[in-house]
């Protein structure tokens, strides 16, 4: 059964979407009306698919939220929003959404938009789980991440792995790129501290 999380701050609309999805697909759904609820729901149901409004609590926080969640979970996302401006669509595209639906939407539009994604979801194994680091990162990158978790500096990591300092830097850069983190020390360290449990 496909697990779907609906992130939408108008609860009536969320309920409508929920009802339509339940009618059309064999799925389990959950509604989150705020960022906090979304965070909780993510951990609890590990959804395969997110339907996300871009304007949450009167801001463009939907895209930020998805960017953030991407670092910890593997999922697909469909944006449902009333924004049609080019810049916002471009910004949303940077998080690689599976689809982008523009409000107002009716049953058929919703069905078509979601059907497309759900049919594809079945083939993907890693979706609907916490981010699997063994798939995302190479062996060397994982070793580096574990060393970062032990609060090792780049120099120390280079010494431990018998690699050049620049090679380590290069790996760190790649890790950041894969996690869509800003390419700086603190961002990666923060991620490692938050998600250290993923690095078995």
């Amino acid at each position: 059964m496909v697990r779907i999380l609906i992130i939408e701050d108008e609860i009536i609309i969320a309920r409508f979407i929920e009802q339509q999805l339940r009618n059309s697909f064999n799925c389990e759904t959950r509604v989150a009306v705020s960022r906090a609820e979304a965070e909780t729901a993510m951990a609890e149901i590990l959804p395969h698919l997110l339907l996300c409004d871009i304007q949450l609590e009167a801001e463009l926080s939907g895209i930020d939220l998805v960017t953030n969640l991407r670092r910890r979970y593997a999922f697909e996302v469909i944006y449902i929003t009333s924004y049609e401006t080019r810049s916002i669509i471009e910004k949303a595209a940077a998080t690689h959404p599976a689809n982008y639906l523009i409000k107002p939407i009716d049953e058929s539009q919703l069905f078509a938009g979601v059907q497309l994604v759900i049919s594809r979801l079945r083939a993907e194994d890693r979706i609907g789980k916490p981010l699997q680091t063994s798939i995302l990162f190479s062996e060397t990158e994982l070793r580096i991440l574990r060393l970062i978790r032990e609060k090792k500096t780049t120099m120390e990591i280079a010494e431990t792995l018998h690699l050049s300092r620049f090679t380590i830097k290069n790996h760190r850069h790649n890790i950041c790129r894969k996690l869509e983190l800003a390419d700086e020390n603190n961002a990666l360290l923060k991620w490692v501290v938050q998600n250290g449990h993923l690095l078995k």
Partner: protein
Amino acid sequence: MAREISFLRPSGLPILAVILLLFHPTYGSPPPVPVGQRLALQPVFTALEDKKGAATADGLIHRPGDFTPLASLPKGDPVSYYWLRATIRTGDRNDPGKILSFSHLTFVDVYLYNDTSLITHRAAGAFQPESKFADGDGRFFCSLPLEKNHAYTLLIRVHHTKYYQPQFDFVLQPARQYFAAAHTKESIDIALFGAICILFIYTLLSWIVSRFRPYLWLLLSIGGIGCYALSNNGYWIEWFAPEHPASAWLLNPHFLYLGLLGLYLLVVDFWQLRTDFPKVYAWMRWVPILLVLRSLSAFGIDYFTGNYFVSGLIDRATHPFMLLVVGYTLYICWPRLNPARRYLAYGLVLLCVSGLYLTIAILVSKEQSLNTVSTVGNFFNIAIFLIFATGLKEEMRRHELAKQAALEELNRLQQHQNTILERRVEERTEALAVSNRRLQNQKYQLAERNTKIETLINELHHRVKNNLQLLYSLLSLQLPIVKDGVSRDILKGNIGKIRAMMLVNEKLFNFEKGRNIGLCEFITELAVHLQKIYDIRERTRILQEIPAGISLSDKHTLSFGLILSELFTNTFKHAFKDHPDPCISVRAVQVSEHLLEFNYSDNGVGIPAGGSTEKFTMGIPLIKDLTRQMNGQMSISGEKGLHYSFTIPV
């Protein structure tokens, strides 16, 4: 720099005397000498050296045998008293006056005897106070009252205190002849000193106007050497200290030193020796020291011993060094001097030549220097200073030219700068104009867009209201058609919700500025409206306890409106079946700054035990959802009617 005209004296024409001296044989015993035209007495004198100065004229007049002819008198002490004796005879022509003159002796007493009786005693001499002179006599001459066809004996006592060997160049000549010569000399002096004065004033004015320092040094030099010439010619004593000639004469060489110091400063400053020729300057620094030493030693010797001969010797001994320094300076500096500065070099060369000439002249003619030497010296002086002044003027002219050129260059640069500046200002102005136009355009565009946005917003508002109205009207129209009770209820509920939306919309539009909606007014309006739909007879009392200040933020207003509409709908539909006194109570309390407590209760049937809970299933989840959306809390209790309690963040 050897300037030795200090021993030149105003007198008659001694050259002639020397010539005459050659033609006159020396007499052993003196016969009376006929006095006619000019007569040099030196050949006819008999003389006596009186070392102690004890002899008197009256004693000696009776002892002609003590005298020996002057030519055979042995050379004695220069400061002894010398007695000279000559016998003269006048002709038969009555001469208006005879003048006895000499060139330079410090003290002279003239006694004129007729036989042995004293006719007159006259005093003269360079150091003699003026008060001792008889009327019509001068420092270097006296008039003798000679009558025709008489024989006189002339007894002269000479005391020369300057340690130079005295020269007894006495001349007897007619007054007219003497005064004519003296007059000629004075005229020449006046002309020369006048020229020097003019030069002095010219230099002074030049300095005042230009403040060019070398002029000051030239001024010092001209002043010093001018005063020296004045002093040499006796005018200094005549004008300033006729009673104390010996003291006044002490100053004589120091004027020269002052002039030389001025010259030294002129050279150093004008050629900028200190910076341009440091090597030469190292040597030249000895010059002022030497000058001061010379000045001090000369003054000491002259003042304490009166030995002008020795001080003169010492002075002359320094000349070779001075000449050497000048020569060295000229040799080193010449190639690097510009034409203006070379004028000074010409002057210096001329100065050296004149110095040499005068030194040689003095060496030849001793203390009794020629009258011409003084004049020639003055001529030299004027020429030298003219050359100096020309050099300075040339330098000034060059300065002026350079300044002019610099000014022109500056002017040109400034013009260039101005042109650049103007061009830049033009460019800036143009750029400003362009950006101004762009700004203006942007302003128009903004204004246009603003208008468009306003129109759009109005349009949007209109559409929203209209659409809500359409929905409201549509549902209201359909209401009579629907006969089924459940469907009617749903339809009524929806109408109520649309009405709530309309109200919120209306309030939002009206209170756009505050973006907050007064809770009290909102509830009243909604309640009244819903009552019209469900409670046509208006039996129900609605009690409100809502403080006036409480308001909701716009993002919560719609949710709250829908909740309220649902609550009222529920109550009207289910609570008051045949109730005698239906009553709804609404209370709101601002618990804290961000929290509102809202209570809704009716006195209806409450939640009946068992059975009809489905009636509520429609509304309560919605209320719960909306409360969740507002991030609020709610609780329900069903005793003695329904009580809802909400806490909502504001």
